[in-house]
């Protein structure tokens, strides 16, 4: 703590001296010079030295130094903060007709704080940041139950329209799980010792009642449901700035090494949506289904969570089946005083009037891209250093790749080009063989670990993993099976001091 600022103080000198090595980090324990660099988790232009509850809400230095970008950032922040409404003339209009949440902040508290593990699926609960997924269990990768439901299932609608799923019919249950070691470490200590949930692990089971489904010919018994919590937004601009070539090289290297061979996201051609022509491998979302930030989860969510249209999204986010069922609903026809054909044509129109201006959307993207990563903390602490050594020795870095260097010419925000960043992810999917994994049975993208240590301060909890089943860092590690089982087993065999040290390191980055 006290030496923290001293270390910050000397970091710029190393940068000035041009110390920018970018070697493969896996398995190698970086020397002292690199340790100093690691405080700048998001690179010089993407890191802020804020460790209070506002840590995930800050603009990058790359934004702060430019008056126009700062103005757009603040406007974009407001768009993320506000609820959209249905009535016109109040600003922020255009919600619905069918939707998932009213605002970004509803699922992204403090923009990176994440929601909490909840007992009930209630989208009016500010702590609930889950998205409900309905999918074909034999092929979870496919656009879900695409004839009926949108990729992210909608549970809300503006009357007279009806939600595809009635939330009251969604049952969320947390079940107990005992691993092959009886939920104990090798030294006999129960997992999460000293907590009210000592010696336990839990996982979610989601059931959706047939009666809760709008579509009469949809058979829920042949489908599955799961929940996925939102991911932090900060630092996504920097992940976007990693070149495709570097990502493909990481993939190739993992295929060649004979263990923990990650899966790369499928190529997506986004030529019209970003400055780089050609196909790009998916790197965003748990299943790596989005390739670039300009057609990424946030750019899409602004539209498909709220159904607020804009110049490049002039249709409703809904299935044709939904439009058909609603148009044929006599209650809807009566309430609107329209024929089935009129209603269908309105709902399914591809040329709706934009409800958000291009200027506002651009500002939103500046905010999205420009959210800074909080600096690492306490890296000079002896225990943290020990934890760092263990992190490398245990093999965590096989997937949680410590550093990358962003491309030399990141056109959407040139100031964050060429930054050495420490996200601790390989941006590839791995099989963790979890109990009831939901769609992530196909492999879940390695979660970036940067900034996560501040969750306790920002959000007051440390619920983690894709469905927030892990209630602390210990549990997050202990749910690592499959490809990561050797690392978990090594952690299980560590002494209490070493386990603590490893977690202290994670809390510091």
């Amino acid at each position, binding site marked *: *703590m*006290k*030496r*923290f*600022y*001293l270390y*910050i*103080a*000397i*970091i*710029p*000198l190393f940068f000035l001296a041009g110390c920018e090595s970018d070697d493969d980090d896996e398995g190698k324990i970086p020397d002292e010079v690199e340790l100093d660099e690691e405080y700048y988790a998001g690179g*010089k232009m993407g890191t*802020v*030295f*804020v*460790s*209070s*509850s*506002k840590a995930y*809400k*800050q*603009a990058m*230095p790359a934004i*702060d*130094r430019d008056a126009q970008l*700062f*103005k757009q950032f*603040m*406007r974009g*922040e*407001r768009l993320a903060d*506000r*609820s959209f*409404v*249905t*009535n016109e*003339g*109040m*600003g*922020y209009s255009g919600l619905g007709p069918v939707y998932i949440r*009213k605002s970004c*902040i509803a699922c992204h*508290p*403090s923009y990176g*704080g994440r929601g909490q593990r909840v007992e009930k699926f209630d989208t*009016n609960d*500010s702590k609930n940041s889950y998205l409900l997924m309905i999918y074909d269990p034999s092929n979870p990768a496919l656009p879900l139950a695409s004839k009926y439901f949108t990729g992210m299932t909608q549970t809300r609608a503006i009357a007279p329209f009806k939600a595809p799923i009635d939330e009251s019919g969604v049952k969320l249950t947390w079940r107990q799980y005992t691993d092959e070691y009886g939920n104990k470490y090798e030294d006999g200590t129960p997992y999460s010792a000293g907590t009210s949930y000592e010696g336990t692990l839990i996982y979610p089971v989601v059931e959706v009642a047939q009666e809760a489904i709008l579509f009469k010919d949809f058979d829920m018994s042949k489908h599955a449901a799961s929940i996925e919590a939102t991911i932090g937004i900060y630092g996504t601009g920097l992940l976007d700035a990693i070149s495709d070539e570097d990502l493909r090289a990481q993939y190739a290297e993992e295929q060649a090494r004979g263990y923990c061979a990650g899966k790369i996201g499928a190529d997506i051609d986004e030529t019209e949506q970003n400055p780089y022509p050609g196909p790009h491998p998916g790197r965003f979302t748990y299943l790596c289904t989005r390739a670039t930030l300009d057609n990424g989860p946030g750019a899409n969510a602004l539209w498909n969570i709220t159904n607020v249209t804009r110049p490049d999204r002039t249709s409703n986010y809904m299935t044709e089946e939904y439009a058909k069922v609603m148009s044929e609903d006599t209650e809807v026809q009566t309430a609107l005083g329209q024929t089935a054909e009129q209603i269908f044509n309105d709902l399914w129109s591809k040329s709706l009037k934009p409800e958000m201006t291009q200027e506002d959307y651009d500002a939103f993207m500046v905010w999205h891209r420009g959210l*800074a990563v909080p600096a690492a*903390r*306490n890296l000079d602490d002896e225990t943290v250093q020990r934890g760092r050594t263990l992190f490398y020795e245990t093999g965590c870095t096989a997937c949680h790749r410590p550093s990358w260097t962003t491309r030399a010419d990141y056109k959407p925000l040139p100031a964050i080009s060429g930054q050495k960043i420490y996200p601790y992810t390989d941006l590839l999917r791995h099989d963790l063989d979890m109990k009831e994994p939901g769609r992530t049975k196909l492999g879940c993208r390695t979660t970036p670990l940067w900034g996560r*240590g*501040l969750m*306790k*301060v*920002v*959000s*007051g*909890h440390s619920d983690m993993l894709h469905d927030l089943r892990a209630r602390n860092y210990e549990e997050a590690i202990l749910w690592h099976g499959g490809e990561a089982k050797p690392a978990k087993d090594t952690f299980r065999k560590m002494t209490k001091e070493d386990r603590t040290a490893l977690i202290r390191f994670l809390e*510091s980055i």
Partner: protein
Amino acid sequence: MKKYLLKCMFTLAVILMVVNFTSCSDDDDDDPVVENRDEMYGNILKSYVNTTVIPTYKALADAALEMRATNQALKENVTDANMESAAAAWLKARIQWELSEAFLFGPVSEDYLNIDAHIDSWPLELEEIKKEIGLTEGQLTGERAWKELEDEVIGFHVTEYLLYREGKSRPVAELTEGELNYLTAATDALVWDCVLAYVAWAGEENVSAAIKEVYRQNADIVNFLENENASIKNFGSKLSSADSYSSWESAVEEIIDGAIDIADEVGATKIADPYSNGRVEDVESWYSWHSLEDYTNNIYSIRNAYMGGEGVTGSPASVSLSTFVKEYDAALDTEIKEKIDNCITKIQAIGDNGSLSFYKVVEAKSKGDVSREALVNAAVDACLAVGVSFEKIKELLK
């Protein structure tokens, strides 16, 4: 916020290089000077909590209860005088809320009790409000408003919508029975949220019997704090002891970042954004036309967070972030105080010190009248300058 941080770091690099090479031991945990610093940070945090945050929330809870009382009087006797009293009570509570905006973290934030969104959401979902008002059966109660209604149909701006039009108390003849009921219910929900914020910061054992009674009136409120958000109970004492923070400095940073956050928001978001785009719908307090006072009170909130004390005319505390800064960099302390005073003056100047509402200023701008642009720009710059000066305090937290 963040501006000039890197520059500060470089400056700090030069200054601290010497310290680093000459006196940095392997472990300075036992350094008595450092220990004193931690104690000092603890004292600053205690004073911040006890002289500014908790008294502000107490005043907010008291003011919300006055709203409840004036509503009751209005219900019993529907007169213009009682309507004006109810509108005046709304304004009094509104002032207290704005005076709390330099500490929009902890219990009130979206990560915890979500009180900020619950009572200060804008825009409103007017159609939903009108639909609820029109119900002839199962009319809204305070309990249902708090528990079931969504953020966009409750809170300060809904009660403002029912009490005010164009900057004035509405003629009581306009107020329907359904509206009066909605006003009463929404106010009850507001009261519980304000009391909840106060109890969460102060601890139930530290509030008066009267406040405790209101808190205990609604079992949902008690359950929400006691069972669903137990970790946030007595947040004031948690912050004072830097509980769950990575360092004492991080806890003190809450004061600084809270101030910077609202200074930037007032300048860039509340003033510059609606003005530059001519968006009247982005002007806060749309019905009471109280926006410039809201913004000024936000800056008073920053002053109180920095100097201790509460209210618009409160006295500074004997221990505060200001006294710390003064000890280590007297010029910076003077600079910050001057920036705060200047900011208040500049915001007030936008509306000729109360004679013109910001709504009217923005409306005029949307019609091409830019006569106030220089005043607006000066206020925006003054707000952002407050943030830049506060950022410098972090250099002293070493």
